């Protein structure tokens, strides 16, 4: 019975979301661009109902403008609880939405999706298609998230979505000029410059200090002896009691956690670039 109720709730939620996604155009703006995608008709789909009509319209307008300008869809989807749609992670749900609703522009279906699940404050930011991967590198994705997460943490949904769209515009603009936001390719370590400088200073100083202190110790070899190993009589060690008694045993079990991001294949590794999983998506997930 319980399982049936859960199934029913999930089904109704899914029907409701689909209805919202596909009925919004009729009740909203008339500025549909039929060429942009084959499924989802709007760039901003607020199934969680966290945006007012006016704000939704503003965001939709901006998202459409940026998407059309750069040929790469900029999408926002909000739901109440992603678990109503899929049993998996929020990332899996975002990818499923992108795939099932045919998001993306052009023949490669390039696009970026910011997916919010309000129940447990989960988000996933994903990108699809070679054009999007070029613009939304791992580094750029992190930078983009930094821009909207501070708004979301204060429940400023509109501000966060605005920052996301503006951030996407900047990233797409840079990519269009052939200069996507990324770590310098020549940085072999994948460590940022500040940390690199700190590591360099620490390692070089500690190594030099260790070597110099060793040299200094050689200059001061005179010290009082505290042991007498040289004077132990050969065969003079008599350990008449060697007793090792088992007392008790404790067992601890630790669950091995796996990171969503490690489930896919890597194209960029740790040297900048974009990490793309086997489904063709890049991006990351987290809490806001």
């Amino acid at each position, binding site marked *: 019975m319980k399982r049936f109720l859960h199934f029913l709730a999930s089904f109704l939620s899914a029907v409701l979301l689909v209805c919202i996604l596909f009925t919004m155009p009729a009740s909203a703006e008339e500025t549909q661009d039929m060429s942009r995608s084959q499924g989802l008709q709007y760039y901003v789909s607020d199934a969680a109902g966290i945006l007012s009509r006016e704000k939704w319209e503003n965001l939709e307008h901006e998202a459409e403008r940026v998407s059309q300008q750069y040929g790469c869809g900029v999408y926002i989807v909000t739901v109440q609880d992603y678990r109503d749609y899929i049993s998996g992670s929020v990332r899996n749900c975002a990818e499923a939405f992108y795939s099932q609703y045919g998001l993306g522009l052009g023949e490669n279906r390039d696009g970026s999706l910011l997916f919010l699940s309000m129940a447990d404050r989960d988000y996933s930011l994903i990108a699809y298609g070679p054009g999007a991967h070029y613009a939304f590198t791992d580094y750029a994705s992190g930078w983009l998230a930094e821009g909207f997460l501070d708004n979301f943490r204060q429940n400023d949904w509109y501000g966060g979505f605005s920052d996301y769209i503006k951030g996407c515009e900047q990233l797409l603009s840079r990519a269009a000029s052939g200069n996507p936001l990324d770590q310098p390719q020549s940085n072999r370590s994948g460590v940022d410059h500040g940390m690199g400088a700190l590591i360099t200073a620490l390692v070089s100083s500690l190594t030099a200090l260790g070597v110099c202190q060793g040299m200094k110790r050689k200059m001061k070899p005179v010290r009082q002896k505290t042991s007498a190993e040289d004077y132990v009589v050969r065969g003079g060690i008599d350990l008449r009691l060697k007793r090792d008694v088992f007392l008790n045993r404790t067992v601890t079990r*630790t669950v091995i956690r796996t990171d969503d991001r490690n489930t896919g294949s890597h194209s960029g590794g740790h040297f900048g670039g974009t990490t793309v999983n086997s489904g063709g998506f890049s991006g990351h997930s987290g809490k806001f």
Partner: protein
Amino acid sequence: MASKLTNYQCPSCTGPLRYDGTIGRLQCDYCGSSFATEEIEHLYQEQLQHAEQAAAEEVAAAIHAAEQAQPEESADWDGENEGMRLYNCPSCGAELVFDSTTAATSCPYCGNPTVVPSQFHGMLRPDYILPFHISREEALKSLKEYYRGKPLLPKRFADANHLEEIKGVYVPFWLFDGRAVGDMSYRATRVHTVQHGNEMITTTEYYDVRRAGSVAFTRIPADGSRKMPDELMDSIEPFDFSDLKPFSTAYMPGYMADIYDVDDRESFERARTRGENTAERIFDSSVSGYATVTPTGRNMKLLRERTAYALLPVWMLSTKWNGKNFIFAMNGQTGRFVGDLPVSSGRYFAWFAGIAAAVALPLAWFFFG
């Protein structure tokens, strides 16, 4: 009151004899003759016995004088009361004042090596002596070699270094035989980790470990001279005691020698610490195969079994630089050379900067290149 000195003279030319550690014989620098220590001992046996008898009489007279002395008389200056003694050089007759612990030295006027046999009378007579094997020239050479390969040594120290003094000294040592007896307890753990599905299962087993027994030691040395820095004497160890000889003053001409002024009970405390520490380490090392071992109880005691008094050979070298004395010691048997050296701050920081730069360059290339 002048005490008696003995000056070993060459039976051929009456020149002063000196013990040459490199050939193990007494050598005459004047006629070039050399003699086995046994030969000279035999020749001087009578003289030594006479000296010992005179020393005994001297001690008895001193005790009697002390008993008879009036309080106002002790206010007069008396070299012996100040820890000094007056001697006459048997070669040139000069009056010599030495430290009361001096047992062998050389006359500052004629340079002849002299021995004070009365210093080795009764309880003060060592059981053993370890003869010098390393010559003065080898000691000087070792000092120069010691400066090599020391990049932090101030260049001017090595260049303008003037040796203030070099002397071969028979240093009084107590040699302690003993047995460290004790028991120790530990709490130890063994840890096994296995992965089962998505779980890591860690099993920790706890053990109560006990060790008891003994460790025998032979001839743990502790110097019995307050003049000699303990850490310097410790640092020239070890000596090879298989080469110990029954004590004879015939090994002493040409070297300085002191008698002990730290008694065996006081010196044993140092040997006790060393022996007990070593026994504890041996017990500790027998506890193996565990992930962690924590000592929970220690009870170790070094029981003293036998004590020997020996004179051991040490070359002492001293230099002065920037108004500071630097003392070096060399094991006169094995040649082990030690001594603290000054450190040049400039060189230290130059090396520091050089090494830091050498390490930083490839790192910088890796991070920023």
